[in-house]
Structure formats: C-alpha cells, structure tokens
C-alpha cells in the first residue's frame, strides 16, 4: 500500500511528541481539569485525535502548540459538558491523594498547598486560567496563546495580567507570612 510509509512516519512523529511533550501536556491537562483521572483520559484522547488527523498535520515547528490546542478544546468541551456551570465558576478540585505512605507532615503541607491552589484557581476566570496555564506548561508565546484561544494579542496579555493580579491578591497573605 502506498500510504503505509506515510503512516509509519506519522506514528513515529506522534510517539516522539509523547516523549518530548507528554509531560507538559499532561501537566496542563491536570491543572486545567484538577483531576489526574480526567487528565489521563484526555491525554489519551489528545494523541488519539492527533493520530487520526495525522495526514492533515502540517509541520510548523511547534507541535506542543498544536497539541495544546487540541488539549485545550477537549478540556473545555468536557468541562462544559459535565457541568452547566462555566469553568470559571467550578470549584477547583482539591489535589487528589497520590500516595498513602506519605508522612503526615508532608501530607499536611500538601493539603495546605492544595488549599492555597484551590483559592487561587477559584479566583481566576476560565480564560485567565487557560492563558496562565498555557504559558506555564506550554511555554507558548502570548501570540501563540492568543491564536490558540482565538483572541487578539492584547486581550491575551490583559488576561494574563489580570490573572496575575488576582493571584497576587489571593496569595498575598501567604506571601506576607513567609
């Protein structure tokens, strides 16, 4: 079959993406969904979609931006499907317990971090959260983020700035105490 080498190349390319960008993508999905389980499921779906569209993909040198675009859409779709609320109004789910053998003081510390994160995330709007998480995990430029979330560059920057201002005000007491 003539298409087979193409397919093999696509398989190889996607395997490489998993290796190179898997962690960043998984991190973004975890942060945007607040759940390891959802992140794992969406992670599979992102790569499955990339694989299904393997013949439509055109190399532009930024595969992570391409994967994050799929991930972002999937996460938002899922969030809207699962809840009538907008994502910005959803409570940030507390970090799930990962290890039962964790020492109690570390668990306490983690719980406190989770609480702070919950407060911080709850205060962000959906779009602010997306912009900041895309910046953090994807290390995308704001121009790329603007394109990904389909808004002008200045709007993306403004979301980032307002998001950080909210984080500052919510995290300020903790910062003062440290």
């Amino acid at each position, binding site marked *: 079959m003539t298409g087979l080498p193409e397919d093999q190349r696509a398989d190889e390319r996607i*395997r490489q993406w998993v290796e190179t960008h*898997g962690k960043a993508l*998984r991190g973004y999905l*975890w*942060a945007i969904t607040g759940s390891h389980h959802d992140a794992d499921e969406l992670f599979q779906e992102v790569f499955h979609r990339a694989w299904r569209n393997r013949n439509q993909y055109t190399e532009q040198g930024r595969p992570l931006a391409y994967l994050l675009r799929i991930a972002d859409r999937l996460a938002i779709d899922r969030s809207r499907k699962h809840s009538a609320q907008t994502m910005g109004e959803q409570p940030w789910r507390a970090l799930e317990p990962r290890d039962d053998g964790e020492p109690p003081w570390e668990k306490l510390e983690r719980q406190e971090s989770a609480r702070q994160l919950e407060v911080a995330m709850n205060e962000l709007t959906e779009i602010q959260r997306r912009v900041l998480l895309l910046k953090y995990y994807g290390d995308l430029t*704001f121009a790329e983020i603007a394109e990904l979330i389909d808004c002008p560059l200045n709007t993306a920057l403004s979301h980032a700035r307002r998001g*950080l201002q909210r984080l*500052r005000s919510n995290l300020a007491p903790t910062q003062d105490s440290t």
Partner: protein
Amino acid sequence: MKTHPSPTGSAPSDWFPGDPSDQFGQNEFAELDAAWLHWTELLDKAEGAAVPPPWRPPHRSHDAAIAGSRRENWRVFALRALSAAAATVLLAAGVSWSHRAAISNPLPASIAVNQQPSANRETTSGMDGGFEPPSLAARDAPLTPPVGSTSDAEDLTWDSTVDTRLNYVHHLLRTIDRKLEPDEVMLERASWAVYALALEAQQSGL
C-alpha cells in the same frame, strides 16, 4: 532580554511572567512576577506531569474496525431506506402484503437475488396487471451514478452484497413501477434521492 509590559499601556508580546530578569524590577509588574512564581510553586509541575500514561497508535485493525462498523451501519441504513421506499411504492402499486413484507425486511446477506424466496418469484396474486420479479438481466445491470453526481458516490466502497441488494431494490422499483407507468427520470431521481440520503447518513457517521 525580555521587557516589562508598560504599566500604563499594553504589554509587549515577549513579556514573560516569572522571568528571573524581571522579578526584582522596580515597577508594579515585579509583584505580578512574584505572584506568578508563588502560584507556579503551588502548581507542582512535577505532579501534573507525573508519569504520562503510555500511548500507542491504535492498531490499523482498530481503524478498519471503526470504518467497517460505520460501513455496516450505513449498509443497514441504506437498506432500510431503500426497503422503505420500495415498500411505499409497492403499497401505492397495491402489491400483495407478502411481497411488501419480503422487501421491507432487509434480506439476509446469504440470499442472493437469484436465490430470492419463492414468494418473490411468484406471480403476484391479487395484483392488478400482475407482478413479475426482476429478471436476472435487469438485476445484473449495474447501478451507475447519475449524471453530475459528485465524487462522493465514487468514493463509496460498494460491497458486492450491498450492490446486489441495491440493484435488486432498484430494479424491483423499476419493475413495480411499470405498473404505475412511471416516468423513467422520476424513478431514477427517486432511487438516487434515497441513495443520497444513505450517503448523508454515512457521512454523518451513522
């Protein structure tokens, strides 16, 4: 070197919150940088990125299975649509119930046209002018896309069984409609309208 956004204007696109070169800056954005750093500390990158689940491209057979299942659904849909159309014409033609029943139920794959149930072969009783099953020659005449049909029609993978069945229904319609003295063009149109419906069902993933 990354630059700070202007406190009064819009930020330049290369501004990067948390950039080490910015965090001790003298303007208000230093606080934003601090917020960014604190937030990202909480948002443990390592935990979020913990052990991405393994991923392997689905096996080709999986793809084929999906395509196969869609094709199968499409077959069922096409057969039902055509059967319904045939049954409607039969009803209008006053064909006996036994014929209608034979056509309304999609034929099992094993039943080739030349092995039709005897009920289909019988001369219809109670039918004005009589009804004859399609001749083998009529059955074997290929269904060709109508003039001006799109490439979609050509892209369809025609299973020989489906082809046989569609031919059967098509020619059955033709035969039945002899009784109605149909307009040949109209008959063709009707057949292809059903075909288009089936195509649409296929494209929408039915």
